[in-house]
């Protein structure tokens, strides 16, 4: 039987003191059923150890602040119930594939750099209509799953390719690129996609679907990557066709 007192083992490290090796600190705390890992982290920081660092904001799985490794699985601390584990020991570690700043806070700079690189905004060439640009329900639906991405980087932490090669754009950036590429209103040129027609872009992915497993919002980055590959191949076929005709 699991008691109501849980042990939280949290991997602690401070990049400001690189000489001190990362090590686990243990905190014992009573858990009321229904509480989330984030709620417990807040209590540990408040009541036991004020020096503990972790990010949080919305506490409702929408802002993307609190991704971490919880008993070996990458997830958002705020949507993970303590009681789902069949043990009273909860082990918390920072998100992999990032440098740690302190404790559970990682340096997200590479993630944001990739995000910015894909030109994450609607690109238009036509002049704007007076009212809305029409979009059918069907076309709106096409981008739905990618729109839902909360930029939490769970997928980035789970991706084995990023673990080997930090230059790979990563699942979230690719999913975002597909969000715009698939948007019926977007008019980006074929060349903007070409930038990612490489091993550091869409061809870097091993399609092992770890990102899909890790995503708390049911985004399927691999769908995006496969979709982008198809578009790139189609564009290439078109180019060849054109050059033959010429």
């Amino acid at each position, binding site marked *: 039987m699991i008691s109501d007192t849980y042990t939280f083992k949290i991997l602690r490290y401070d990049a400001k003191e690189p000489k001190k090796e990362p090590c686990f600190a243990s905190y014992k705390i009573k858990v009321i059923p229904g509480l989330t890992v984030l709620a417990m982290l807040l209590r540990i920081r408040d*009541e036991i150890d004020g020096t503990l*660092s972790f990010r949080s904001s919305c506490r409702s799985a929408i802002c993307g602040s609190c991704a971490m490794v919880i008993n070996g699985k990458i997830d958002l601390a705020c949507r993970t119930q303590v009681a789902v584990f069949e043990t009273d020991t909860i082990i918390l570690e920072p998100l992999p594939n990032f440098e740690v700043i302190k404790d559970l*806070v990682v340096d997200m700079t590479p993630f944001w750099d990739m995000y910015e690189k894909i030109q994450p*905004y609607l690109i238009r060439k036509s002049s704007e209509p007076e009212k*809305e640009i029409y979009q059918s329900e069907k076309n709106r639906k096409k981008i739905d799953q990618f729109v839902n991405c909360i930029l939490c980087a769970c997928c980035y932490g789970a991706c084995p390719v990023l673990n080997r090669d930090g230059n790979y754009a990563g699942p979230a950036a690719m999913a975002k690129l597909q969000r715009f590429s698939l948007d019926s209103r977007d008019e980006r040129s074929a060349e903007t996609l070409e930038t990612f027609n490489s091993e550091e872009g869409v061809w870097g992915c091993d399609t092992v679907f770890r990102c899909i497993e890790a995503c708390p919002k049911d985004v399927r980055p691999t769908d995006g990557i496969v979709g982008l590959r198809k578009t790139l191949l189609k564009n290439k076929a078109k180019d060849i066709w054109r050059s033959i005709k010429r």
Partner: protein
Amino acid sequence: MMLTHDILIVGGGLTGLRAAVGLCDKFNVGLISKVYPVRSHSIAAQGGINASLANNPDGRDDTWEKHTFDTVKGSDYLGDQDAIEIMCKEAPGIVYEMEHWGCPFSRFPDGTIAQRPFGGGGFPRTCFSADVTGHSLLNTLYERAVYKKVKIYPEWFVTSLCVEDGQCHGVIVLDIKSGELIPVRAKVTVFGTGGYGRVYRNSTNALINTGSGIGMAYKAGVPLKDMEFVQFHPTTLIGTNILMTEGCRGEGGYLLNNKGERFMQKYAPTAMELAPRDIVSRCIMTEIEEGRGFEHPLGTYIELDLRHLGKKKIIERLPGIRSICMDFIGIDPVKKPIPIMPSQHYSMGGIDVNEKGASPIKGFYAAGECACVSVHGANRLGGNSLLDTIVFGKLAARAIEEELPKDKLKPKEKPLLSLKAQVEKKINKLTQAGGERPYKLAADLGAVMSEKVGVFRTKKEIAQALDEVKKIKERYINVSVSSADPHMNYELHNAIELEYMLEVAHTIVLGALLREESRGAHFRRDFPKRNDKKWLKHTIAKMGKKGDPLISCKQVKITNYQPMERKY
């Protein structure tokens, strides 16, 4: 080190980003936020944004004038009608603008932006992106800011606002990562720092919504307006108080008591579940007080029933709500009703500004939830707040663009350096061991506010709350945090913000005590009627010499709509 910008924007939510996007082409703009912009509370808005597009087949003759009337009536006539007119007139334009910038709004079969009914609106005019409208809007504005290459300082925490001789000189910032204190000088400072929900124990707001921006401005001498008006949302999940959007009722959801009755029939026979929030919250509390709620270890609740909408509609229109219910309370709303209770949701009051976002202090602007124009008066309508943030973020930017070249403001270094020294001293004091930990005071404050300054108020309880807030303020003098290292020290941020939360709470409580009438969200059991003769006016709170708030009044601007009784 001293950083200098023409214009400094504090806040990476919808307000701050919209202001930045409007100004960055012409001026040297810097945007500071204590979290990455997309982690701001705007991300959590669910239901939608109001604009009289008249896209809905049931709302073809909607106009901005009708939107204005609904907003004035919803505000219980406390909103300034000239400002409401401006907001409602701008609304369609900003919704189209957001759409052109990529916002993925849900669509009607004809390809136009979909609109649904919302509480207190005579027409279905709430535009939405499923039930993640805030997420879609905030991402779109952030995308726009990336496109425009706005200079952003993420995870920089503003500790104080620098005002001297009636002019704003900038702010002092704590760089969360390095722990360094940095003075930032600017000709114009704009606050889009959001609401103060966390002053209450039970709130739908993000953990970061402490209202520190409001408290900071107040401490620097900027007046606050209508602080006693606090919105309580009728439908929040028991336990966590996560919001169940009004869209649930907009799509046709029912409220049921333990007898299985749709009790809104008794209170608002025409509008039913879609009466404005202040009214629905009071009805739910009455049902609970009179013994018609359901008991649960997490509190007494009422049911929000969506089952009759069917799985397809729930999955299409309210997918976020469904996953929140499953993740946070283990209930699938397709199969079971959702247990809900009212809790704090929105800050109607805030920094006293005009329709240009300008405060009485030269060079200091504010907009969005931290500000009070006032367009929401005594009660905000659902879908009007997202509108407020973008409209007034945009209009503040426009006003600054016009004024800045004329004003020749010269912000000074000296007041910034002396303020920095003060902050250093304060941090030193907070990091001395031995005092009470900040969380205890924050918890006590939240409890007092939720229990004594809530949906129903009485003189006796408010007076008790005033006493207790003052006591917690005294305890604050001896607060201390665990570590003296300012790098990545979230407990230290909490301690700094706590001071501002206490000031904010003090103004709310005092305003609530003085306002001896019931209007919108402010309901006094001992004065259950609206009193236009005495109280058709705004309250203004200014910090007095001894640190206590001084309250004065300001006229409400009435253009076309004379106060009437509010019936739904």
